């Protein structure tokens, strides 16, 4: 038996012996865990022989210590400074999770329009919330994906958001996931369910922050259901520890006249894998699945997206930009399905990669599967360096080569975040882009 296969088994065994401890608080979650455990047991761990994992080297995940359930480790970070991550716009619409566990102390939900729910998923499950039980685990359709099942097998605390018909929640809802330092490598399975009823409107800021540089594994599953005419803007910021693993599955079902816009910013993690899946479940749907990846060192960032058009008259848009520094490796696979009879689809997909070094690596694969004949689908992928003429232009204006490269990289990255309307988030991301493009001071490199 190969070393990898052995480790896989250890990984699963630890997981499964522990998970039954979670049961007994709510039938909704108990059932989901039970189902998921069965699926974990009958699903193989991915290998490079699987098409969807061909370029993604899972060795860093499987090497090293076994991951243990987060409840079994001693967290050692000081939490006193985490208010620096709070968003001023979301002072009264914030859920905080420390290593996956809901923190009532740090969360803050003020008065909301009637019927709005912003709270801990485990509490709603214990109360047998009918909306939760109707929608939980209905949209995360990731066939044979062991990581989705892992999440289900350990589902516990998480975010549950419901906005009723015709209601707009003006303040952005901040889902702040904090990962602390710890003595052992741990794993966390955050779960989020967002339901926007007819003509509702909300903005979700899903934030993942590693406080230290420790090794942990987070597997968030995010399900979003958009009813007719509803709007959800979903910003995802991944700033995990540079030794962390982050595998996320954000899945949205979008109904008639609804509008789902998502922006995923990937900055952290040793290895990240993001599989957004957006399904248009009716006509006249709009959605956006933009991404910005800024990686350096030995980071690997993989995005495998699915945009599934099952009905006519949809508009979809995906701009996925990556900047690769050091020996980092970026992977993109963007599937667009247009089902038979789904005519008049206007779909745009572009993956642009900026390679700053010779050692960096990019694999990109736009993948269109179109079974209707009256559609407008464009896609493109580019891999390039900064153009000599661009650099010369800036140089001739007196800017040093270094400064010219910084500004050009900054400009390249900016396009994907300029549509983010929450001011503090926009500023925060500008700063992150600036920090990425400006080389580290020597002192920081030594540290």
């Amino acid at each position, binding site marked *: 038996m190969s070393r990898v296969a052995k480790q896989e088994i250890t990984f699963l065994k630890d997981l499964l012996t522990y998970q039954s401890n979670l049961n007994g608080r709510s039938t909704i979650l108990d059932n989901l865990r039970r189902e998921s455990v069965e699926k974990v047991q009958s699903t193989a761990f991915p290998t490079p022989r699987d098409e969807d994992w061909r370029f993604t080297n899972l060795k860093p995940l499987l090497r090293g210590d076994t991951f243990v359930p987060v409840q079994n480790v001693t967290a050692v970070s000081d939490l006193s400074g985490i208010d620096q991550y709070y968003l001023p716009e979301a002072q009264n619409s914030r859920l905080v999770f420390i290593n996956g566990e809901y923190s009532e102390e740090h969360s803050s939900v003020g008065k909301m329009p009637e019927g709005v729910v912003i709270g801990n998923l485990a509490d709603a499950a214990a109360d047998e919330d009918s909306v939760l039980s109707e929608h939980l685990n209905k949209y995360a359709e990731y066939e044979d994906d062991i990581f989705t099942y892992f999440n289900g097998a350990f589902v516990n605390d998480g975010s549950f958001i419901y906005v009723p018909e015709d209601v707009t929640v003006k303040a952005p809802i901040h889902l702040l996931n904090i990962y602390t330092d710890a003595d052992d490598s741990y794993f966390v399975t955050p779960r989020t369910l967002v339901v926007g009823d007819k003509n509702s409107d909300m903005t979700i800021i899903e934030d993942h922050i590693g406080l230290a540089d420790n090794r942990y594994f987070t597997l968030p599953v995010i399900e979003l259901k958009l009813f007719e005419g509803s709007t959800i803007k979903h910003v995802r910021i991944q700033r995990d520890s540079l030794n962390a693993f982050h595998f996320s599955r954000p899945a949205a079902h979008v109904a008639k006249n609804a509008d789902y816009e998502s922006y995923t910013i990937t900055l952290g993690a040793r290895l990240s894998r993001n599989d957004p899946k957006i399904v248009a479940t009716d006509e006249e749907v709009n959605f956006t699945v933009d991404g910005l990846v800024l990686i350096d060192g030995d980071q690997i960032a993989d995005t495998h997206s699915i945009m599934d058009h099952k009905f006519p008259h949809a508009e979809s848009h995906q701009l996925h930009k990556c900047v690769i520094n050091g020996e980092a490796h970026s992977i993109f696979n963007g599937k667009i399905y247009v089902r038979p009879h789904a005519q008049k689809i206007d779909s745009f997909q572009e993956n642009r990669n900026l390679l700053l070094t010779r050692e960096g690596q990019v694999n990109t694969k736009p993948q269109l599967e179109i079974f209707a004949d009256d559609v407008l689908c464009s896609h493109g992928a580019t891999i390039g360096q900064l153009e000599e003429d*661009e650099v*010369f232009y800036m*140089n*001739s*204006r*007196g*800017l040093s080569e270094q400064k010219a490269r910084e*500004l050009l990289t*900054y400009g390249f*990255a900016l396009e994907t975040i300029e549509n983010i309307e929450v001011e503090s988030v926009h500023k925060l991301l500008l700063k992150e882009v600036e920090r990425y493009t400006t080389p580290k001071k020597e002192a920081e490199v030594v540290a």
Partner: protein
Amino acid sequence: MLEIKNLHAIVEEEGTEILKGVNLTVNKGEVHAIMGPNGSGKSTLSKVVAGHPAYEVTEGEVLFEGEDILELDPDERAHLGIFLAFQYPVEVPGVSNKRLLRESYNTVAEKRGREELDPLQFEDYVRERLELVEMDPKLLERSVNAGFSGGEKKRNEIFQMAVLDPKLSFLDETDSGLDIDALKIVANGINHIADDDNGVVLVTHYQRILDYIEPDIVHVMINGQIVKSGDKDLAIKLEEEGYDWLQPKAQVNGELK
């Protein structure tokens, strides 16, 4: 101010020689025009003076205020006060015109021992310079040249020149692609900037711009060399008679004799 002596340059990648012994002297307060047919090396000369990395100088000298600048990087040449208005200005999405200009102005100001401007002072200074080229202030907030029309790009080059206030400017076909109204505005801007302390070299195909900017000296460049220099009447003669009368007469096996 600028002395170019027997300058030879090749395209680095392919080794083709483009400049084949150019001699040119520009003094303070002078406006020069370099004319010539396509492919004669006019644009290359501008780029070589500005330090474009695609060209390699194989022979000759370029002295700016007595100093050999050929070993300097393009940004160092800009710091000395050399400016190139591009024939095809580059688009820089995501970086606002204002941001580039302020970085640029302050870098050059620092190197030239001028006072740097804070954002408010810079704003005032820039607004005043904008008027020289009658440019819409909205273009300041837009990304550098991104989505600009051909005319707006050319005007933006002259605006940058106005802001940076260089000692020596090469304007590479700034007039091409401009309609007559835009041409007048651009020419007017250049006339305002040109004074007794700086030098301007207009590189152009057409005599048209010289109706609005009167050059002190007109040069004709053919096949990588300046073959004739004269006053503005030379430009008029070129317009009427073309370049044929200046071309070497005989060719043997494709080689000029």
